[in-house]
């Protein structure tokens, strides 16, 4: 195996070790979406009639509808968290260990992003498992097929977290920025309600949500869970992710 493989393994092992050690982080990563699912969605389960829209072939209960949005939520939060951890590492000096290894900046950042995406994906599947145990009707074959899509979405969101981290200095600022990004991203998207419902109340909000990249990331997960794919959207996400990854070392300077 090439040397860069072991560097990648070292980075991802560290990411997993931290994820497992930080119990509260794991718990809140799961509690957050499950709260939406089991408390919020349960209340709306029968009253929010979701009209039939792709990829669904029939009427969908609300708790099924928000599953892709919750996966996106998990990936978004974890993507931000891992960038926050990088900001922390930068301040704490641990980043230097990474920076003085014989791997290029680009490799370093991409490996970090892949590691963050891996953790996000595992969190997402843990959440899905719990949702299944609570009786939410998620197609099992879709869970397998959606895996690569969920991973790509997790990577894209970690990348967005990274680029965001590059615009702020200091951890306190970054935490604040997280809130300005995460909640608008979530609410101005198709995660929690279909866009046609937004359109009914406000055309402006509808267009904002349609332009929100998070909407398209969530929708690609939604389609994948039902064994459908939107080639153009996926192509856009992939090429955007590849391009931004290439440019990442220009934008993000992880130096002390």
């Amino acid at each position: 195996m090439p040397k860069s493989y072991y560097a990648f393994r070292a980075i991802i092992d560290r990411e997993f070790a931290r994820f497992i050690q930080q119990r509260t982080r794991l718990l809140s990563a799961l509690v957050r979406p499950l709260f939406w699912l089991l408390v919020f969605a349960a209340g709306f389960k029968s009253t929010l009639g979701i009209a039939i829209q792709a990829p669904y072939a029939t009427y969908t209960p609300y708790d099924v509808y928000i599953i892709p949005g919750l996966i996106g939520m998990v990936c978004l939060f974890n993507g931000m968290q891992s960038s926050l951890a990088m900001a922390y590492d930068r301040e704490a000096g641990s980043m230097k260990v990474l920076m003085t290894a014989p791997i290029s900046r680009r490799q370093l950042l991409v490996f970090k992003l892949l590691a963050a995406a891996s953790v996000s994906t595992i969190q997402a599947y843990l959440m899905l498992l719990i949702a299944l145990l609570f009786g939410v009707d998620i197609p099992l074959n879709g869970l397998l097929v959606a895996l690569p899509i969920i991973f790509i979405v997790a990577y894209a969101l970690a990348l967005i977290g990274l680029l965001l981290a590059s615009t702020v200095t200091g951890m306190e600022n970054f935490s604040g920025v997280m809130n300005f990004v995460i909640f608008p991203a979530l609410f101005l998207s198709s995660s929690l309600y279909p866009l046609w419902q937004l359109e009914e109340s406000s055309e402006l909000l509808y267009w904002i949500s349609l332009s929100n990249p998070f909407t398209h990331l969530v929708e690609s997960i939604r389609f994948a869970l039902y064994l459908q794919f939107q080639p153009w959207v996926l192509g856009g996400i992939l090429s955007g992710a590849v391009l931004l990854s290439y440019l990442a070392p220009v934008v993000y300077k992880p130096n002390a």
Partner: protein
Amino acid sequence: MRMLFGDQSLLSRFISVIKVALAVITILFPSQAVSYQLAISNERSDEVLLHDAEGRVLRQLLSCKRPRGMLVEPVNQDLWVACSDEDAIVRIDPESGEVKQRIAGFSGATNLALLGSEQLIVSNEGAASVSLVDTTTNVIVSQLPTGNEPDGIVYSADHKRIFVASENAGVVHVFSSEDFHQEALLLTNLRPRRMAINKDELWVSSEMGSRVEIFNAASLQKMDRIIFSPRGFRSEQLTPVDLIFSSDGLTAYVALGAANHVAIVDVVTREVEKYILVGSRAWGLELSPDGTRLYVLNGLSDDMTIIDLESRRPIASERTGLVPHAVEVVNR
């Protein structure tokens, strides 16, 4: 990929894994070939539409005013349709739609039941009665008085009794099938609509009572009741109408009307095993010939939901005409 790992085959390996996974999935979840069609009466659009087993509209079979109840003749497989606003019943060829027979004189004909090979019973919503008609002569032989708005008609398993639900009166009339005299009146909860027989049990849906009541078809004693309570619904929203049994008689399916769900009930324990979300105002029900699918008509969303009974999941909802009422399997 090469940039990162220097291993070109990683990507192609990955793609192969996905291909294999998809192939496995296709093997595990094959689509089945079916050979029947569905006729759906649509009250508001005044038509009977022919659909394939996947729910897609093939063509219009019949145009008549406010078609409601339907019946498939067991011998020649022709379809009888009650055209309520024409006060008539019509027999058509379910393939071509050709009208083979038309009998008038039924005030607000709602539902039909077969009585032997040459007689039909038709409930007259507008005349508080059921009519017995000879289909060979087109003559209405007899009219049996009922309470207001008679709806569903079923027979006991031994064919000795005819049960007719009278919506408005809140009773089920029990007629003898030999001399048609009324043997008894079963008092039910509010607005009994439809019924179904399972061996010696008579199940009656009570639209405004949010429940199904179970009577012994022989002794006519009330045995039991099932009250529905899907989460998040008020009892007023639960308006059970159509009900149907699986061929083995162990499972009952009840359309819950404004609650937008279908209930799957264990006949023995009377427990509701699952509530399945369908469209708006679940109304008419029909099982596929092999019993693997349940077709549910959604009166207010103008569509039909197809439920796969093995997985107990709704698989699709397909558009039909306006305010679908009844569905029958035809052209097997």
